[in-house]
């Protein structure tokens, strides 16, 4: 029988909290940027202009084909150089967090755009017709009538995706950026207590994600009635 030794955890809590902050930061930025860019992609995808719609379709398919780990690796290796070249950054600026955020945001946008596209399509076609019939322009119809309803329908799916994203931040280990999982793993490895630290991490993830999905469910029920 395995002898558990949890003594590493208390001392590591500040470090783990730093990791949790990185996880939350990345999640937050990727959600906000992902939804904005995803909305634009979804509108391009639904537009009548061939090239725009093809571009959006190609983008979404490309990002959905490659494992997130590979995307992050690419971003970690290429984006810093690119940023440096474009912005003339100091070569030693730590771009790991920025490149992870960019990578996640671009990747998640592909998923969000599919959710948002479905959300827009879930609004009855008659609503667009009604908005137009009242003399609204395309922009007004989208902003005042379609998107508010679409987002309302999508809230549960958007949040579910956010929970997945939060779990996936553990993949930033490829850039040695210590998110919550990475921090737990590193402490575990350093102290030879991997099993304990990962069980602890798993429990924390479960509590956070379960609470979040409970809230999502509540919201959904509130919506449905």
């Amino acid at each position, binding site marked *: 029988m395995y002898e558990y030794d949890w003594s590493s955890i208390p001392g590591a809590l500040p470090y783990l909290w730093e990791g949790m902050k990185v996880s939350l930061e990345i999640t937050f930025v990727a959600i906000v940027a992902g939804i904005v860019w995803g909305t634009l992609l979804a509108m391009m995808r639904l537009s009548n202009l061939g090239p725009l719609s093809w571009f959006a379709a190609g983008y979404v398919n490309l990002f959905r084909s*490659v*494992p997130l780990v590979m995307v992050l690796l*690419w971003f970690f290796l290429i984006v810093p150089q690119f940023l440096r070249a474009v912005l003339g950054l100091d070569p030693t600026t730590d771009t790991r967090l920025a490149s992870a955020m960019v990578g996640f945001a671009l990747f998640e946008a592909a998923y969000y755009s599919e959710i948002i596209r479905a959300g827009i399509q879930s609004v009855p076609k008659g609503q667009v017709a009604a908005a137009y019939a009242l003399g609204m322009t395309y922009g007004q119809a989208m902003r005042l009538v379609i998107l508010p309803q679409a987002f309302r329908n999508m809230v549960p799916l958007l949040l579910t995706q956010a*929970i997945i994203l939060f*779990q996936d931040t553990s993949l930033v280990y490829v850039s040695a950026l210590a998110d919550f999982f990475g921090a737990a793993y590193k402490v575990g490895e350093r102290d030879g207590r991997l*099993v304990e630290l990962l*069980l602890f991490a*798993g429990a924390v993830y479960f509590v956070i994600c379960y609470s979040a*999905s409970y809230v999502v469910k509540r919201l959904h029920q509130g919506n449905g009635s």
Partner: protein
Amino acid sequence: MNYNWNWGIFLAQVPTGETTYLGWLLSGLQMTVMLSLSAWVLALALGSIVGVLRTVPVKWLAGFAAAYVELFRNIPLLVQLFIWYFVLPEILPGGTAFKQINPVAQQFLASMVCLAFFTSARVAEQVRAGINSLPRGQKNAGLALGFTLPQTYRHVMVPMAFRIIVPPLTSEFLNIFKNSAVCSTIGLLELAAQGRQLVDYTAQAYESFIAVTVLYLLINMVVMAVMRQVEKRTRVPGYIGAK
């Protein structure tokens, strides 16, 4: 950037001499495909059962199914894999015997079971959504014809629900290939791990990343093509969309 490109590296012999580096990548590809397909079959079976149970009017069954889904989708895959491989054999009665079998078989089994359970929770949610999206009258129509509840599920609701959820299932199917990359962390030599090994042995990082990315894209294209056929085959004439 001072990087030495060397695409010929794929045809070079590996240090132990039994194959080329390309051979490594291909064996990784094979492992990824085998692992993902077997896990998918299991996930589909488990997910269908759990998804159906979530909709049945028996409280404790539906509750069990809900707990199952919450458990497997709220813990990161990486952590689950670690638990299946390192923690459970220490706790479960058959664990010692399991640890004595061939190491590759151990890694494969743990990975497969882990991916299958993780994915099954997601499949179950899709199945549930599919069943719930059917008009309520369908269940009543089945019952009114004298079908028992299981017969109604078997002949009326499940076949139609599955047709409706082919597109989201396609996403999950693609995800299982991508998620299998995580299994390299317990030493299973699948595609991503072989790619990494290639970097370790040759230091030709970019060639390796590009090759691995291309192979994943290839898998993706094949899966999409297959699922498009499935969608075509199962399409119901005259039936427009799920709504």
